[in-house]
């Protein structure tokens, strides 16, 4: 597919993105190193399970909705979650592929990305509604929570429109400009918002796996009971 864009859009799609990406990486390095400097609670008790296996088990529990009651009883919610996050990954991927390897964006690939982004947009709208109307969610929501989900929903909508024009052979459109301007904003804003939760996710899951894996609650197939 052709990718003829103006020099201005090229500047936005590449150098500006790289600068913003570098800034994001720097912020994450600071965030992660700050966390790593904090001591992990000691565990000197004789272990009943395996802390490493527990951590791995915990880290991938996102792929086992039957593991947690909160997901097993809310499979619709879980499915939404998966689609939404796949769409995020695809959208991020698209921001790299469009300027760097436009030939990858075949109609099929573009169509798949558009499908996920379209679904994610609808899911975003439902999540905004949920946050506004479900009392136990509303009471814990901050402006950052609303802003993050609105931003993502708009981003998916804009991305879908930009890619539709892309399939029509129009690489440089207002939608594409907005899509990349929003991407730049994301790269700079995300380290300061709740959207950066994916950086904390591995820490939370590994912490959980270390504590409860060591105590023999996870990985029930490999118990090391102290009384044996």
């Amino acid at each position, binding site marked *: 597919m052709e990718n003829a864009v103006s020099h201005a859009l090229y500047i936005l799609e590449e150098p500006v993105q790289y600068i913003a990406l570098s800034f994001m990486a720097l912020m994450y390095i600071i965030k992660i190193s700050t*966390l790593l400097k904090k001591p*992990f609670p000691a565990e000197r008790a004789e272990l009943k399970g395996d802390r490493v296996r527990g951590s791995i088990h915990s880290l991938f529990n996102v792929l086992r909705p039957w593991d947690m009651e*909160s997901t097993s009883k809310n499979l619709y919610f879980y499915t939404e979650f998966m689609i939404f996050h796949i769409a995020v990954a695809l959208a991020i991927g698209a921001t790299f592929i469009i300027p760097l390897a436009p030939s990858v964006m075949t109609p099929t690939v573009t169509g798949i990305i558009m499908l996920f982004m379209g679904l994610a947009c609808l899911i975003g709208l439902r999540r905004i509604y949920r946050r506004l109307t479900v009392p*136990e969610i509303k009471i814990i929501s901050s402006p950052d929570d609303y*802003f993050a989900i609105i931003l993502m929903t708009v981003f998916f909508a804009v991305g879908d429109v930009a890619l539709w024009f892309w399939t029509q052979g129009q690489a440089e459109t207002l939608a594409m400009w907005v899509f990349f301007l929003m991407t730049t904003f994301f790269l700079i804003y995300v380290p300061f*918002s709740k959207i950066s939760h994916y950086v904390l996710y591995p820490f939370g*899951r590994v*912490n959980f796996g270390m504590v409860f894996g060591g105590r*023999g609650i996870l990985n029930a197939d490999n118990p090391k009971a102290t009384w*044996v």
Partner: protein
Amino acid sequence: MSQIEESNVFSSEIPEKLGALEERIWPLKQEFTPEMLAEMESMLASRLNRVVATSLAGCIHCGMCSDACHYSVSIPEDKTLVPAYKADRFRKWYKSRYDWMGRIFPSFVGAQPLTSELAEEMFDKLFGGCTMCRRCTYNCPMGVDYGMMVRAARSMMQQVGRCPANLQETVDTHYNHGNNMAVPQDEFIETIEWIEEELQDEEGCENYTIPIDKKGAQYFLTLNPREPKYYPLTIQASAKVLNAAGVDFTISSRYWDLTNYALFNGNDADARLFSMWQAEDVKRLGCEYLLSGECGHGYRALRWELPNWLGGVSFKITSMMELMAKLIMENRIKLDKSAWKGHRFTYHDSCNIARSGGILEEPRVVINAAVDDFVEMEHCKERSFCCGGGGGALAMSEFSKRRIAAGKIKADEIRATGANVVLQSCHNCTDQLKEIVDHYHIEAKVMNLAELLSPALVL
């Protein structure tokens, strides 16, 4: 006749002064003052280990925890009991100090400096609205450890003197007397000797003993002070099982109290001190195992926290729940299931034994060996709902009404099993279950596992 003479260490000094040399009463305050808030501000950084910091920073307000908490499920009309909301009372303060956005635009991310109002909310929700049962932790996609986070918050409030009075009094009593009910040493020994006589009056138990301070015994059995004080039959039942299996055990006349309420008020120095007393006593008698009696938080404090508080120990630590399962699996005791014919049983997993302790299958081994009619609750093992009595809740009279209301989900699940006996292995659970069974009009008796085995033993 007790075997106290064997060690001969107390012949000249019973009762000895147990507990700390200088007694204390922790000064408590009725409200947060600016000085207390300033002191809490100075402590915050020291409480932020990696788990607590991640838990404070990692909540995405997805609300998945709302169905996980016995408070929010049992009292659905009060949305402030949702775990994320309760934890946010602490998180707001944390964000105002450490969150980048929170320091620049606090209201945008819900950050809030520590004020007396916010601190009072923390007190209400994190002492009176959370039992640190960690059920929400198990259901949090991000792995937020509410138990560890809430304990960190409690520890700072306790340090500045804001702690539920009865909870602090329990810790102070332990500090001053060496056990949390101030049972004098001579009275304790007399009680054990009396229980031993009662045991020997049972058919087939004429030669059974409850050795006190027996040096070199394999197991150092610890007790909850409620047992010698109010439930001596549970000691009798445990001793009967151990004797029937030929287990070499002893009870100390000194630091026999396995409880550690400093786990609940967050005071690490006290927790460490109580642990040290017990560890020193195990070493004094040269026992191989420190054996936790049936007590939820006591088991967790001994098995999982004591080695951390003391930097490791040279002896092994186990529990009656595990030992009884071992004795059954090794055929060291024989049981007659007809002893409980006509009864239906269910088992309540104490949070500190199951979710935070890893004892999931052992109670089932014990129960299935002794009864034919056992029905699990809808949520069991690591998914069990807290009964509402954990986290020191029974020692917080100011929150009693909420505690009973929060027990509704457990009461509903007990009722659904149709059981007329609720088994458990925890004294806080015992008291809470007895209260909710009565409050919600359920015809069921509450007993522990040793009490289940004792009448079924074939001697």
